[in-house]
Structures are given as structure tokens and as C-alpha cells.
């Protein structure tokens, strides 16, 4: 019995890492731009289609992942520069509509270019690995290893590099950063690129669990939001912890009550908002001009 739980937790950590990576992208953009990015999931979906296309060209799988990450970064940067930047100062609600609209445009584009039928997408690694009582798919193990690497890298960027410290400064006080001469727009571009690169990576890593179709990222998007809220919306570390907790809890709940699997995250959000409005690691923030 105990072994079953260990396996549920291990698999849940892999799912949670996926949620955490997506939540991290959402929180990075939310923190620095004060915009909820609804297209985080679907951007990953579109890039996964691109990866699918590249794989049919017989390119090696790791190279395809790399290209997809680069494509994601380019997409994110382009969106920031040409869609978000012109509207940023003019309308907050307009920005929300832009990211929501993008989510739909991505879905339509994917369906239009690649046809909306579900397609099979093979994982990079197919076998399984065993650690004592735990048996984990190699792909799941890869997800955990890769996300640990990404979390660490991102933290080093945020706490050790000028551009990362600048991003944290913008998140705390946009006006203060701008007036000091911090290149806020270059940093916005950087953050959107990172977030969309993450979304592409997540898409490719997670798609083998489902089938490739235009809305396969929707549940991930919803759960990443839940994870972000659970972690406190304004904390990158919170997003990671929120994602991991959600993944593990969801997996255990689904084992006992399979019909609750999809709705559990939203129930959890309601509970968190009732008792911990700022999430696990969130802080109350004040913004002033």
C-alpha cells in the first residue's frame, strides 16, 4: 500500500513539474507586466505542432526540442514587441483580451494548418526506470530532471544577473525602475521570451501523455493557473511549489476518486482563496505611481 503512494507521489511530481513550469511562465509575466497571460498553454500547443512537423522531417528529437524552445522565445519576444508594448500603457483590460484572443488564434491556426485531428506524438524516452519500490517512466524522470535544471537556472538568473535583478525590481516598483534608467522594455522582452520558451518545452514534454490536438494544453493551462494562485501569484518559488503540490495531491485524489481529477484543482483554488488569499508564498503588494 505504502509503495503505491510512493509511486503516486513520484508520478505526481512529474505532473507537478509540468504545472510548475507553466505556472512559472505565467507568474513571470504577471509579476513584471501585471498581465494575466491566457495564451501560455496554447502557445506551447502551437510550438508542439511545429515540433511535430520538424519530427516528420526526420530531424533528431533533441534538436527538435532545442529548435522548439528557440521558436518559443522568438514567438514570445515578437508578441511582446508588436502586440503588448503598443497597448501596455493604454488599456489593462485590452491586454487581457489580447492574451485571451491569442490563445484562440493559436488554436485556430493549429487547426487550420495541421488539421484538428488528434495525432500521436511519441515521447523522447519510452522505457521506465526503477528506484527501489518506485517505477517511473523515463520521460517522467526526464521531466523532473529538466525542470530541476530550469528552476535552478531561472533562480540564478533572477538573483545573480543584472537583467534578472532588474526584472525583480520592475515587479516591485515599475516606476522606480523606469526612473532609475533600468531598461524596462528590454527586460519585458526577455521575460516574454523566457515564458514562451518554457511553454514550448512544456508542450513537447507533456504531449505524449495525451494526443496532439489543438486544445490539449487547456487542462495544463487551467491547472497552472491554480498552481500559481496556490503559490501566491507573485512568487516564482511559490509557482514551483504550488505546481508540485498540486500535481502530487491531484494524483493521489485521482487514485481514490477518479471523477474528481479534473475539478480538484479548481476546488483547491477556492479553498486557498478562502483561507490564504495571498497563497502559500505570496506577499501583499502595493503599487503606486
Amino acid at each position: 500500500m505504502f509503495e503505491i503512494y510512493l509511486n503516486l507521489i513520484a508520478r505526481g511530481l512529474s505532473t507537478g513539474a509540468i504545472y510548475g513550469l507553466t505556472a512559472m511562465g505565467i507568474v513571470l509575466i504577471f509579476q513584471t507586466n501585471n498581465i494575466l497571460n491566457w495564451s501560455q498553454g496554447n502557445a506551447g500547443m502551437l510550438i508542439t505542432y511545429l515540433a511535430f512537423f520538424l519530427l516528420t522531417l526526420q530531424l533528431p528529437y533533441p534538436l527538435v526540442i532545442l529548435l522548439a524552445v528557440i521558436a518559443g522565445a522568438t514567438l514570445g519576444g515578437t508578441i511582446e514587441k508588436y502586440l503588448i508594448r503598443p497597448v501596455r500603457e493604454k488599456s489593462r483590460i485590452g491586454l487581457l483580451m489580447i492574451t485571451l484572443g491569442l490563445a484562440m488564434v493559436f488554436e485556430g491556426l493549429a487547426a487550420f494548418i495541421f488539421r484538428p485531428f488528434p495525432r500521436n506524438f511519441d515521447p523522447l524516452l519510452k522505457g521506465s526506470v526503477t528506484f527501489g519500490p518506485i517505477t517511473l517512466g523515463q520521460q517522467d524522470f526526464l521531466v523532473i530532471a529538466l525542470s530541476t535544471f530550469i528552476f535552478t537556472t531561472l533562480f540564478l538568473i533572477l538573483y545573480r544577473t543584472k537583467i534578472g535583478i532588474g526584472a525583480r525590481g520592475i515587479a516591485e516598483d515599475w516606476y522606480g525602475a523606469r526612473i532609475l534608467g533600468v531598461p524596462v522594455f528590454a527586460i519585458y522582452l526577455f521575460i516574454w521570451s523566457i515564458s514562451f520558451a518554457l511553454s514550448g518545452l512544456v508542450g513537447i514534454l507533456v504531449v505524449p501523455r495525451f494526443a496532439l490536438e489543438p486544445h490539449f494544453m487547456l487542462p495544463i493551462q487551467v491547472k497552472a493557473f491554480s498552481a500559481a494562485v496556490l503559490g501566491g501569484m507573485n512568487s516564482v518559488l511559490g509557482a514551483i511549489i504550488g505546481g508540485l503540490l498540486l500535481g502530487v495531491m491531484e494524483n493521489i485524489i485521482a487514485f481514490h476518486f477518479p471523477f474528481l481529477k479534473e475539478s480538484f484543482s479548481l476546488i483547491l483554488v477556492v479553498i486557498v482563496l478562502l483561507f490564504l488569499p495571498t497563497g502559500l508564498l505570496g506577499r501583499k503588494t502595493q503599487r503606486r505611481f
Partner: protein
Amino acid sequence: MLKIEGLVSGYGHLEILHSINLSVEKGEIVSVLGSNGAGKSTLLRTISGILKPWKGTITFEGRLLNNLDPIQIVKHGVVHVPEGRHIFPGLTVKENLLLAGYKLRNIELSERYNFVYTMFPVLKEREKQLGGTLSGGEQQMLALARGIMPKPSLLLLDEPSLGLAPKLVTLIFKALKRFRDEGLTILLVEQNAKRALEISNRAYILATGYLALEGNSSDLIADQNVKRLYLGR
């Protein structure tokens, strides 16, 4: 050094400053006085590029600043220390300083840290502490320290004494004197008119967006109207 001619500026459709003429010479401290809503902060925000001038010209050392971005204006040596400090509460003192010196290269950076720490030794002690955990006076010192970090030639100070106890106000004004001795030029916006006039060479008085009075600070201190309206005597 700084020359402002016929400056009109404001927010959205609201015109705040009406045709302001003002100049600052090298090595001077010039204060801008006036009651709330007179347009003092608007003036500084327009100089530092946060607001775009509607009409008129702002020239700094012969260079037109009108259409420059705040980043470029900082690069040209004009640094704005905003009202309310705007320090980053979740960043350490050193990170706060780093962002102020964003454009500097690493060698210059360490030299500037040393300079700032000799000016404000208490910040050296607090180097690794989060900005939000500093006392009000220390936060204001950090704000000033951030102002001098990028090696400016003109410092725009908005209400550096706001909300501080008299003892700390004295400390802050001492720091301003030392800045001047180091060769900095300062444009100082202050509510505390008496202190500002005592430290500055010249002063401008704004009233509802118009220039009401200008002159040497020593003359203005003696002026009956200024005494009655701004010095509370």
C-alpha cells in the same frame, strides 16, 4: 547647464505646467518651492523623461532632452530621485544600488559602490538587508545613494525630507551639502521651504503651474511675501 524655456507639460489632457522658464548653472543647488499641486513634481518628471513636454525646450549641456527616453537621460547624467523614495523593498540594499548603476561596467560598478558607501557608511552595514527592512531615514539615504550611483552631473531631488524626523532631515541636508562639495549640481524640490532656501543658491517659486517668483535664496528668505506664504512667519 540645464536650461528650460517655455515648458508646458501635464498628464493626459490636463495641463499642469504653463510656460516655465528655468535654468541651473554648474555647481549650484537650485530649489523649486511651492504648495501642493503647484507642479513641482511634474516639472521633475518632465525633465527626467517620464512625462513628455508638450511645448518648449529642455536642454542639458547643449543637448535637447525633449524626446529622449528616461534611460538615455540617465546616461546623459541627469538622475531623478523620486518623491516617496521608490526603493525596491524586496531587493537588498546592494541590488537596489546595482539597478541604479545598470548602465555601468563591472569595474566602474565596484568603484561606485565604494564611493556611495563612503558617503553613507550605514548602507555598507546594511548591504545584504532587504530595502523594505530599513528605517525611514535609511530608506531615504538609499534613495539618495541610488541617485548618485550612476555618477550623475545633475541630480533632481523630489522632497528628500518628506516624512522624516527633524534630526534626520538635518542629516539628509548635510548629505546634500556634501554632494555639492563633490561637484554635483542639484535641482531640489522641497516642501520644507526654510531648509531649502538655507541650502540653495537660487530658488524658483511655483504657484498653480506658473512661475511666481525667482531670485537668490538669500533675498527670498528676507522677502516679506515669501515669509508670509511659505516660511510660516
